């Protein structure tokens, strides 16, 4: 028997690994120093811990320690990368290239710059699997382009973009390449050198570290990337991000990176297996369900499925002892279904019917089987209640119906 509730929403956040918490504990109490205190042992101790973490972060993305800037989280990192580059390079140009399925932290940073008249932004489309075409990136580059911002892997559908090709194009055209790699770091191999990434956002709580800590990798050589800070103050983090360092969070983030790097090959294999087991468990027992995202180029723990004729939120309600997430309109205040799912070009009804399963380090095969059973039963029950399912079974083409909305 599995223990409920089951957490299967690991793209939203992950629990802190107990090993991470152990590493953090002393820095709350006895080793509480300010890493910026240069004249006593409390400060030195904290600084040493931060340096260690900086190395642990650098190591997981093949960067140098001094290229890591600690922030409050990936949202801040994305803001700093995008706004910081556009501001600093304003004499060189003002054009930014991004993609429609980016995280809101990227999209809304771009929109803010547009509103302020500081940038013009090209939002590239994605194909039916949610993948950006590197050729589209190439074609969008103008002599005014100062930044390309494309995420490593999508947080809803798990699609992994052709980052290395985009990185190559960016190098060739001498445009700075920022990559929101929040969902990728620690889950799949990320290498800023091989991938040609100049700026990279990452987050602690997505990789079994604590919330409230993130980082931005800023390339120091080939090219040396410059940024105008968005937070001014004591000049911490080489002047790019002022504010007393969150030492406990940083220590935890570092420990999380070290564990993730060490266990990545085995964990990726195990999660892929669990994901495939879940996928098979659903697809073998239910008709008219559809995979959203790329069939192969996808994050190990990600499964995003649309269950036709069943509205996503009602399905979540039916499987209330399982924590997953829905692209349904009704889970948001806007009443609009997920913009990521809609960008795939699938019909709106299926967008309302999508569920994201996010498998993580602590999920088991028993949990996967339980979830597949629960979802299958609930989808069948809700379909018996669904007028759309009834109409489809009667052979009515739902697209031909005149709906009275």
């Amino acid at each position, binding site marked *: 028997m599995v223990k409920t509730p089951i957490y299967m929403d690991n793209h939203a956040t992950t629990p802190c690994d107990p090993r991470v918490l152990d590493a953090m504990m002393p820095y709350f109490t006895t080793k509480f120093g300010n890493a910026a205190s240069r004249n006593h042992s409390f400060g030195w101790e904290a600084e040493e811990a931060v340096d260690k973490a900086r190395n642990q972060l650098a190591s997981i993305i093949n960067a140098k320690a001094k290229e890591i800037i600690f922030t409050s989280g990936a949202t801040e990192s994305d803001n700093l990368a995008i706004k910081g580059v556009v501001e600093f390079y304003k004499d060189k140009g003002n054009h930014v290239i991004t993609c429609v399925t980016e995280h809101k932290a990227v999209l809304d940073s771009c929109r803010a710059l547009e509103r302020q008249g500081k940038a013009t932004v090209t939002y590239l489309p994605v194909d039916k699997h949610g993948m950006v075409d590197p050729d589209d990136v190439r074609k969008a580059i103008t002599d005014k382009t100062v930044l390309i911002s494309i995420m490593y892997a999508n947080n809803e559908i798990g699609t992994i973009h052709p980052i290395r090709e985009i990185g190559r194009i960016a190098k060739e055209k001498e445009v700075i390449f920022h990559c929101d790699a929040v969902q990728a770091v620690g889950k799949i191999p990320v290498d800023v050198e091989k991938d040609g990434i100049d700026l990279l956002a990452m987050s602690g709580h997505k990789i079994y570290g604590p919330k409230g800590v993130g980082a931005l990798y800023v390339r120091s050589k080939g090219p040396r990337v410059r940024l105008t800070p968005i937070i001014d103050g004591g000049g911490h983090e080489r002047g790019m991000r002022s504010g007393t360092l969150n030492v406990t969070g940083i220590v935890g983030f570092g420990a999380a990176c070290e564990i993730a790097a060490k266990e990545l090959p085995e964990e990726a294999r195990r999660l892929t297996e669990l994901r495939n087991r879940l996928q098979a468990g659903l697809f073998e027992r239910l008709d008219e369900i559809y995979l959203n995202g790329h069939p192969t180029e996808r994050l190990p723990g990600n499964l995003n499925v649309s269950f036709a004729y069943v*509205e996503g939120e009602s399905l979540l*309600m039916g499987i209330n002892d399982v924590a997953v997430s829905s692209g*349904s309109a009704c889970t948001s205040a806007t009443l609009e279904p997920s913009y990521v799912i809609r960008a795939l070009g699938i*019909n*709106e009804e299926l967008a309302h019917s999508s569920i994201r399963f996010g498998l993580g380090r602590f999920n088991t095969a028993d949990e996967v089987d339980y979830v597949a059973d629960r979802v299958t039963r609930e989808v069948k029950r809700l379909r018996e209640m669904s007028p759309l399912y009834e109409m489809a079974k009667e052979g009515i083409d*739902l697209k031909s119906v005149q709906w009275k909305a």
Partner: protein
Amino acid sequence: MSYSDKVLDHYNNPRNVGSFAKDDPNVGTGVVGAPECGDVMKLQLKINDSGVIEDARFKTFGCGSAIASSSYVTELVKGKHIDEAMAIKNTLIVKELNLPPVKIHCSVLAEDAIKAAISDWKKHKDGAEEPQAARAQEK
């Protein structure tokens, strides 16, 4: 967001799920909403010749609150005269089910479904009576 106990009860034990034969002259069918909006309600009312709603069935594609609203409505209208049923306001559904502001559209849809089902029944009845009246004149 958490759901009220009443919404949960209707969602877990929906009343009167199902369908009547659409061609039954005593049945009025109302289908409201649209799949792209994430809500479609089908409400069917069996109405006798004196205009009293004898039975009701529903099927709903939508969130839990939409399912609960339609389930509640099938209980609410049973035994009511169509004039009374036409006067049911969505606010009554909101109150009964404790719907939060973002879910008020579900209650509006349920109110619309009642009206659509009754007007469909009236159409049947008018359609059925007119030819009869015409025949009577011929004789």
